[in-house]
């Protein structure tokens, strides 16, 4: 063995320098691959942005969007600055819409389930064969009553085509249900409008011009109804003009982020919100507050109301009620809003009526800063929008399915296995239906039980229109257009319906005679051409069609507010039943309060990582779910933060980590909905959590048939485990430093 030659430090450096020069030069040559388009996107200039106007479909609000596309790819969604509803603003859910388009768990073609329903073994299916199979199933029905269609937040035109198809077949109209609508009380609000004003259209509150807003459980700035429009109006109300700053009072048992933005938060006893409204009304009438006059004609409404009883029932001191009544009645412009939580009680309708009556008492119905009715669609076709059915109607469908009366079930934008209370029995019901077809773009909990999945395009690839409800301060029709060509071999459900009609022929083909979805839309929308109201005018129908897409819709140039006309329901004494709750208070000491998450809403956002990553504004939890309890309650049960508890109701149980939250009544257990997905893609399934709908009792408000989702009692039990939640801020509030 020879001695190795020693290298001096100097020599080493020289060699190293030489080596690096040599390698440095060779690496200067690199190879970059550039791929051409196979088919170039329309109007595309490489590297240059093209903006398309369309409509957000992440919730029912229908905000106008503009989408930046480069090289045929959608890159960024912004609010449409021209749109009268959201005026250029957009919420986090709207921003995250790109991940609906690019979601890696999307179905890339039509599929059929080959290992039996529930096997999750899917096999690609050729579209024409899928349509042949489905039309043969329809043709083979022994009676068209055995055909059912369950929808959720469906595009309006798809809903209308579905309705026409079912009508021509002689089948029952589609049943529409989704959890978000249930949580915001959409069907109850619509029934309230019908009772009070003789029209089913939703109220539109003129927040921006209001001096005092009493919000009874409406989380205006989060998910309720039209949160972006309401946030814009809230901004104007707080700092719109110099020296004016509106007052917001929020009545709800838990401090939501809307309540946190309010001047006063009144944690009312669950189910007693209506009592507060009755007491305030009584005080105004009795003490002749405000500037409306004697209130003589309204005395009848409150003749049975005792303020002290109402105070006791609602946990709100008489002094507070008096103070609020004065502030409300003395304001130049004030408005009371019956919102989500009270609609989820068994006395929901009468509570909401009592709240709406406050607007009558101070004569703010149809007045600036008060309440108006949403404008309906400007043409007959545009007025046919998906109405939200009541829970009772859904239960009726479930009953028919369980009884074996349904042979064919079609599902669009609906995920009932996730969104209905488990105790409603949809699982047993769907098992009894011989053939199930889902139009979902991803495999969700319900699609797992389908024979066929015929994925619709996602909304950034789709055509459509929507009359937003609640609307803006003028008639509006949103337009929706593809901002990119469909990424995969998916097919617009409207085209599937037209294809089915053509195959089945006869009456169906006559009722749905359009060549394709786009020609249906062009025809329907052309009825707006020539209207003298429009913000733009076009000489030809094709010119109108172009402007309709460029603007992102059609709307009136001027403000046109719809003043409601009163029916005689408000001439009888107001009466609110005691709230009922499922579960014995001895066994189940707490009220369950499931609430719509500001990020995931009712769970439809759970498959989007951007939304999972967005911290909840109140708890700062990310990628997780939790149970909120009051510190007092936690101490009583010996629970600390991050302890896993079992929450149990008479109908089911679930486990989750605890967040000790001072902004909640001690008798309330609040749980955000949206997590706990068994299916719905990798991101939704990655989060540890359960679906609180397992706990909810399938009970309704007898006045409306709406789901009383807030009427369940629960109990809590620590299971002796800790599961630390990921939070942006530490529990002691010192976490902000780590962001510095």
């Amino acid at each position, binding site marked *: 063995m020879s001695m190795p030659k020693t290298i001096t430090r100097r020599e080493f450096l020289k060699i190293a320098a030489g080596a690096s*020069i*040599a390698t440095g030069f*060779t690496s200067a040559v690199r190879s970059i691959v*550039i791929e*051409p*388009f196979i088919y*170039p996107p329309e109007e595309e200039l*490489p590297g*240059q942005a093209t903006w398309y106007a369309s409509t957000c479909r992440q919730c029912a609000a229908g905000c106008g969007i503009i989408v930046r596309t480069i090289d045929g790819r959608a890159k960024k969604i912004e609010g449409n600055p021209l749109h009268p509803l959201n005026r250029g603003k957009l919420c986090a859910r709207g921003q995250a819409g790109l991940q609906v388009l690019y979601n890696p768990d999307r179905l890339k073609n039509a599929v059929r389930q080959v290992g039996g329903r529930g096997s999750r073994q899917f096999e690609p299916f050729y579209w024409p064969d899928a349509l042949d199979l489905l039309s043969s199933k329809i043709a083979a029905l022994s009676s068209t009553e055995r055909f059912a269609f369950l929808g959720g937040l469906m595009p309006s035109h798809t809903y209308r085509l579905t309705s026409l198809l079912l009508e021509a077949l002689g089948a029952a109209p589609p049943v529409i249900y989704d959890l978000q609508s249930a949580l915001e009380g959409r069907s109850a609000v619509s029934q309230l409008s019908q009772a009070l004003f003789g029209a089913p259209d939703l109220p539109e509150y003129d927040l921006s011009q209001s001096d005092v807003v009493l919000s009874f459980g409406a989380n205006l700035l989060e998910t309720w109804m039209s949160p972006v429009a309401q946030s814009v109006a809230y901004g104007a109300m707080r700092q719109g003009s110099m020296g004016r700053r509106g007052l917001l009072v929020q009545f709800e048992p838990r401090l939501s982020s809307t309540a946190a933005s309010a001047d006063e938060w009144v944690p009312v006893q669950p189910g007693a919100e209506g009592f507060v409204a009755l007491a305030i009304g009584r005080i105004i009438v009795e003490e002749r507050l405000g500037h409306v006059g004697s209130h003589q004609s309204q005395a009848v409404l409150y003749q049975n109301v005792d303020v002290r009883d109402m105070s006791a029932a609602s946990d709100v001191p008489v002094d507070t009620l008096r103070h609020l009544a004065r502030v409300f009645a003395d304001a130049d412009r004030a408005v009371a809003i019956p919102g989500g939580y009270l609609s989820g009680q068994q006395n929901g309708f009468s509570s909401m009526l009592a709240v709406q009556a406050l607007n009558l008492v101070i004569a703010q119905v149809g007045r600036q800063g008060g309440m108006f009715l949403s404008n309906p669609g400007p043409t007959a076709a545009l007025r046919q929008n998906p109405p939200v059915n009541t829970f009772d109607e859904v239960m009726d469908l479930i009953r028919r399915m369980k009884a074996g009366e349904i042979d064919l079930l079609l599902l669009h934008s609906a995920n009932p296995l996730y969104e209905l209370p488990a105790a409603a029995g949809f699982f047993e019901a769907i098992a009894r239906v011989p053939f199930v077809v889902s139009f979902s773009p991803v495999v969700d909990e319900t699609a797992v039980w389908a024979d066929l999945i015929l994925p619709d395009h996602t909304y950034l690839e789709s055509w459509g229109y929507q009359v937003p409800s609640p609307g803006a301060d003028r008639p509006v029709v949103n337009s929706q257009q593809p901002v990119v060509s469909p990424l995969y071999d998916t097919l617009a459900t409207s085209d599937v319906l037209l294809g089915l009609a053509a195959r089945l022929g006869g009456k169906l083909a006559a009722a749905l005679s359009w060549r394709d979805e786009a020609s249906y839309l062009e025809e329907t929308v052309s009825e707006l051409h020539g209207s003298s109201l429009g913000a733009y005018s076009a000489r030809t129908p094709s010119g109108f069609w172009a402007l309709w897409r460029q603007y992102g819709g059609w709307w009136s140039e001027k403000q046109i507010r719809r003043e409601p006309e009163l029916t005689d329901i408000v001439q009888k004494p107001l009466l609110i039943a005691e709230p009922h709750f499922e579960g014995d208070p001895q066994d189940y000491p707490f009220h369950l309060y499931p609430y719509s998450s500001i990020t995931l809403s009712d769970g439809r956002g759970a498959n989007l990582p951007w939304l999972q990553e967005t911290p909840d504004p109140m708890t700062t939890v990310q990628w997780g779910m939790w149970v909120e309890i009051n510190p007092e309650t936690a101490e009583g049960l010996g629970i600390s933060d991050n302890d896993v508890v079992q929450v149990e109701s008479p109908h089911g149980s679930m486990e989750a980590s605890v967040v000790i939250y001072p902004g909640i009544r001690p008798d309330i257990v609040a749980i955000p909905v949206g997590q706990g997905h068994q299916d719905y893609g990798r991101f939704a399934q990655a989060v540890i959590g359960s679906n609180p709908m397992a706990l909810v009792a399938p009970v309704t408000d007898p006045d409306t048939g709406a789901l009383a989702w807030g009427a369940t009692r629960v109990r809590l039990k620590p299971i002796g485990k800790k599961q630390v939640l990921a939070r942006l801020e530490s529990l002691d509030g010192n976490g902000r430093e780590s962001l510095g």
Partner: protein
Amino acid sequence: MTRRLLLFFSILILAAVLVTRAQVLASPEQPVAFNHQIHAQAGVQCLFCHSSALRADIAGIPSMQKCMGCHTIIATDNVAVQVLTSYWKRKEPIPWVRVSWQPEFVYFSHQAHLRTGENCETCHGDVGRMPLTRPAVKMDMGWCLDCHLLQPEEKVVRLADCLTCHK
């Protein structure tokens, strides 16, 4: 010892420069033997295929649909065209190897250069005579400035400003 080492390094550096230069200016191997010369001789204008050079920063390469617009009938017996057609049938994009490029930290605009009356050949050389496309020059900053500094005096201030190209 030091002198010999110095000489050795000088030769090494020179060799590296020459090798690199040759590599930089060679025509890269392409998946389809595209021939600019034939197309130019047939009278096809640069802008017919690189159609956004006048309207955008990027000149663009033609979509496969555009290639097939002609080659469904023209020169279908040519081997390169057959390779193109096989990509088209598989609906697969051809992974072309880029011939000319600027690094990511340079903001270059074709549109701005063509507006001043420059033509394609100024930078890309006589592509119309290249059976296989190769870079005509090494597009480094010194080469850009060679031209920018020759411009009329009132323009040079802006054209020699760092932030004009490095935003």
